[in-house]
């Protein structure tokens, strides 16, 4: 394997797993190979789906993130890098499963950047407001009329850390 790609993939693996360990929302399943070139990312947070004609919230979605051999040099089609695996009835202006429009992906965009981008889109922190650019035009019009519902979660992807000084109080001590 090309050394530059191999070291880049190792770096993605380390950073991705660190992010997953520091998140209550993200679970990252690396694909085969060392270092892996693909991941299934499971997000335990709400998104919107269309079920039997009604639009409802549903918790959880899975994404495939794959780094093609030439990914550090070219990404002519972002649809070949990210794909929505489930839910197949996801309802979002930027989504037409398995396609998700994450905008332009510069070659070499990191795994963590992609994960953040996907999280922000699926929880409606980011959406395409214009039908002209939307993958799902119905969802675009629906979303514009329901902006009060968004974002669907206020939980951050990476859990917030608090720096606390803890003083142990001996048993029986007066408070």
């Amino acid at each position: 394997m090309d050394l530059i790609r191999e070291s880049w993939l190792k770096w993605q693996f380390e950073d991705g797993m660190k992010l997953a360990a520091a998140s209550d929302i993200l679970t990252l399943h690396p694909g085969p190979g060392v270092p892996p070139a693909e991941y299934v990312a499971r997000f335990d947070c709400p998104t919107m789906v269309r079920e039997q004609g009604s639009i409802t919230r549903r918790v959880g979605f899975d994404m495939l993130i794959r780094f093609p051999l030439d990914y550090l040099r070219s990404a002519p089609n972002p649809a070949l890098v990210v794909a929505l695996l489930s839910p197949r009835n996801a309802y979002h202006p930027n989504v037409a499963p398995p396609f998700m429009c994450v905008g332009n992906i510069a070659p070499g965009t990191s795994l963590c950047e992609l994960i953040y981008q996907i999280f922000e889109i699926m929880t409606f922190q980011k959406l395409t407001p214009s039908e002209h650019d939307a993958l799902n035009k119905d969802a675009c019009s629906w979303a514009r009329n329901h902006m009060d519902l968004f974002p669907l979660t206020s939980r951050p992807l990476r859990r917030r850390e608090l720096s606390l000084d803890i003083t142990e109080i001996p048993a029986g001590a007066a408070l």
Partner: protein
Amino acid sequence: MNSDIRGVAAGASIAVIGLGNIGSQVVPLLAGVSCVSKVILIDPDHYGAANLGHQRIAAAAVDRLKVKVQQRALRALAAHIAVDTSPCRIEAVPPARLHNCVMLACVDSRAARQSINRIAFRLGVPWIDAGLDRSGSVRARVYLSDTGDCLECNWGVRDYELLEQQVPCRGDTAALATVAPMELGSIAAGLQVMLLRRLLSRESAESRHELARQQWFLDLPSGRGWIGHYAGKNPHCRFDHLRWQLSPLPRSAGDITLGEAFALAGMETDDATFSVDGQMIVRRVRCAQCGAVRSVGGRILARIGSTACQQCSRAMTPAAIDASDRLRRKDISAVWLDRPLAAFGLADGDVITLNAGDATVHYELGYAKHGGH
């Protein structure tokens, strides 16, 4: 003579990629380069009415394939030159057909330049880039694979960000045409052919390498011109610069199955892989608009053919779950192993790569039939 130029100078084969402003003016100049014996013209497009006055064509050329128009023009000027045409993008041309060629890049897209650079370095052939912008600057440069630095050695993060992309919500976002005045194209074409003559006439490897370290630059509004000098290969370049050691395979793509190719390479283990450099192998394409799905049965991306959706006529594209850049033998079905390579969209002149552990073999398909190297 070094390997880059071996076999080229005596009866030079030239591939002209892009037949717009620069390319349409390079073609007639090639008629005057005495050692040129063969020209391959590559461009997928037709001339349009908007090209009149910006490219060297007559009104009769409108709506005709660019390669056919220029083939006819070159034959009229130099009947002794054999002219082949490939009405497709450079990514779809079987690369070994460009062996022993000097490639002249007359394109206005970064992605196309990047593909030309990759193919030239894989084959170990020289390429000469020419470019211009509407503000009036013109540049040209020779690249030799054994000199070291490639197009991408001089690219930064911003250059990669500016590569053209096809995002699913906006369809095809092709590079915008430069629409530069024809006289600029004429100067760029002249510079490019001047560098070609110098490259072909230089006897020593050292003098050719010196030529390849220079970029010629003219800025017409200010009336200035200069020659930039490049230091050599960038150790942090994202391109691996690997050159193929090609194994000629006399069998045609239609006469050998994928399973036979693995067997021929002695790679029948589970971890063996099959790939085609720069290509994805696609199982299905989908319409992002109406959701239609069409099986393409494992063809390489550049040769899928028409991808227009039959329901809404939008271009269909594969998703990440529909394509792979290499096939692992253990994951390939018996049906696919029995398919001829032609069924994957491969043709004579294509190069397939088989890998198992540290061993890699690059087979040149139909070696005898497409002329070989």
